[in-house]
């Protein structure tokens, strides 16, 4: 704990990351209490106050049907975070398990699993997600599925490399000698030694998952209106630039803050956990 604080103190950027993410998470969790107009997250129309530049009580302005941008951004954060967490919660166990098996068992198993992984890795992530979304109905759940499908191979590759090197460690041989099963060696001996790297990557990735999900909805393939989403808000507002600048700038900044924050936090975590790059 002391060491953690010392690292944060010696590296102001890490502290900034922690603060930004704390802000984002607090906004998302307590959205119902913080948002000045909670009902604006849905299909509300208020043509008296439409398309207003930032002013009290609409600090980020209002959109084309008069909804408060600030409230909508807060609720969009909530959806982005849920999406990021769910995607990683599914993609990481799948990717990690495949990577462990490929790295530890070796032989044909390794060859087949890693070639399949390579196929996924060879397709640009956004293109893969887009083509999946093109086939599926554009909903939040399908968005999660598409992003998950493109995310697990990165964990497979990471854990595969770690497992390959951990496999040569003496304690793996020692465990095999006293008769530990393959499952025990993989999950109880090798996996705990990979946890710091996995955690660091997960933190870094949360930002990127949010970015990809926003990109999808920017293209109209993600979360559908009236549910607030940062990506679709930017896409919507882009048509009215530069006059109604607040329609794009604030959601764009919100994406920037989340992605930047998770990156800084990931770097801080890497330092704290002593993970090599």
């Amino acid at each position, binding site marked *: 704990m002391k060491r953690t604080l010392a690292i944060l103190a010696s590296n102001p950027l890490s502290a900034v990351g922690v603060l930004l993410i704390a802000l984002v998470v607090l906004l998302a969790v307590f959205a119902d209490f913080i948002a000045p107009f909670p009902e604006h997250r849905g299909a509300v129309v208020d043509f008296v106050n439409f398309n207003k530049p930032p002013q009290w009580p609409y600090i980020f302005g209002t959109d084309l049907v008069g909804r408060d941008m600030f409230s909508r951004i807060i609720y969009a954060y909530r959806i982005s975070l849920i999406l990021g967490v769910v995607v990683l919660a599914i993609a990481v166990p799948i990717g990690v398990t495949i990577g462990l098996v490929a790295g530890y068992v070796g*032989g044909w198993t390794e060859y087949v699993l890693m070639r399949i992984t390579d196929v996924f890795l060879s397709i640009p992530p956004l293109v893969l997600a887009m083509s999946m979304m093109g086939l599926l109905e554009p909903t939040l759940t399908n968005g999660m599925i598409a992003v998950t499908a493109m995310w697990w191979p990165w964990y497979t590759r990471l854990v595969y490399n770690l497992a390959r090197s951990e496999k040569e460690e*003496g*304690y793996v*041989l020692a*465990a095999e*000698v*006293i008769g530990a099963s393959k499952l025990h060696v993989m999950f109880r*001996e090798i996996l705990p*030694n990979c*946890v710091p790297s996995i955690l660091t990557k997960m933190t870094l990735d949360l930002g990127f998952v949010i970015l990809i999900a926003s990109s999808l909805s920017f293209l109209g393939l993600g979360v559908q209106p009236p549910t607030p989403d940062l990506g679709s808000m930017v896409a919507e507002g882009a048509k009215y630039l530069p006059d109604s600048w607040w329609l794009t700038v604030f959601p764009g900044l919100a994406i920037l803050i989340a992605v930047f924050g998770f990156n800084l936090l990931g770097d801080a975590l890497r330092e704290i956990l002593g993970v090599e790059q």
Partner: protein
Amino acid sequence: MTAPTLLIRDLRLSFKGYSGLVEVLHGISLHIDKGERVALVGESGSGKSVTARIILGLLQSMRTARISGALNFEGRDLEAMGRGERHRLRGTKMSMIFQDPTSSLNPVYRISEQFHEVLKRMVPGIGRAEADRKAAAMLADVSITEPERVLASYPFQLSGGMNQRVMIAMALANEPSLLIADEPGTALDVTVQAQTLKLMRDLVTRHNTAVLFISHNLGVVREFADRVYVIYKGRIVEHGKATQLFDNPRHPYTRALMNAIPRITGEGIPEIQDNSDEYLAPLVVHEGCGEPGGVA
């Protein structure tokens, strides 16, 4: 006479490579009686460690390995045993100690947790408290003065010598009848190595454990072993009691090996030939050291 703890007859090992079979062991025969300490000495790549892995059954699962010959453990044919039965022997009747004690312990678990895993091999339902109590007693046996502190530590918090003792205690925890020591302590400094070897010798004598001691260090072998096999390029070249072999090395390779030790008196690094036809001379067996069953 009871069956020897370990009997290996005409063990051959080859690996299938791109250019055909590469033979690594050319028919090794050796035996270890109950409670006997036997050393297998040879240079790097002579086949010492693969022999150990074959005994434990770790190499058999490799697709490229071709193994033939007889392997008997306490009178039972290891190769005829089912996988499950053979698996049960590991960690209970057979155990092993490695070169580098610190890397042989998983850095993410405390010593007590790792001890627990070892004890579970013998008594699957053993509880944590019971395991800790047993472990503490065993650590006391290897002259660790504060067993509780060591049990609560992670391997990287302990010195190499401490870890080596922990490894010895773990290896002997389930009272195996055969302990394979693969160059134990080579990664430690000389004084620590000497202490832990003495400890290990006392313990195996007390528990009447048979030991296969694999080493390239002749000084250590002389102190530790009752009987010595010298191995060169996958063949046993000389076999005798430790005293016979060290007093009167008869095989040209054994003599070269002994001459290779730098003297503390400072006569410079000895000159020996890397390769010589003489090294391939046939097996020399000292008096009274034949293999059981009459095969030399």
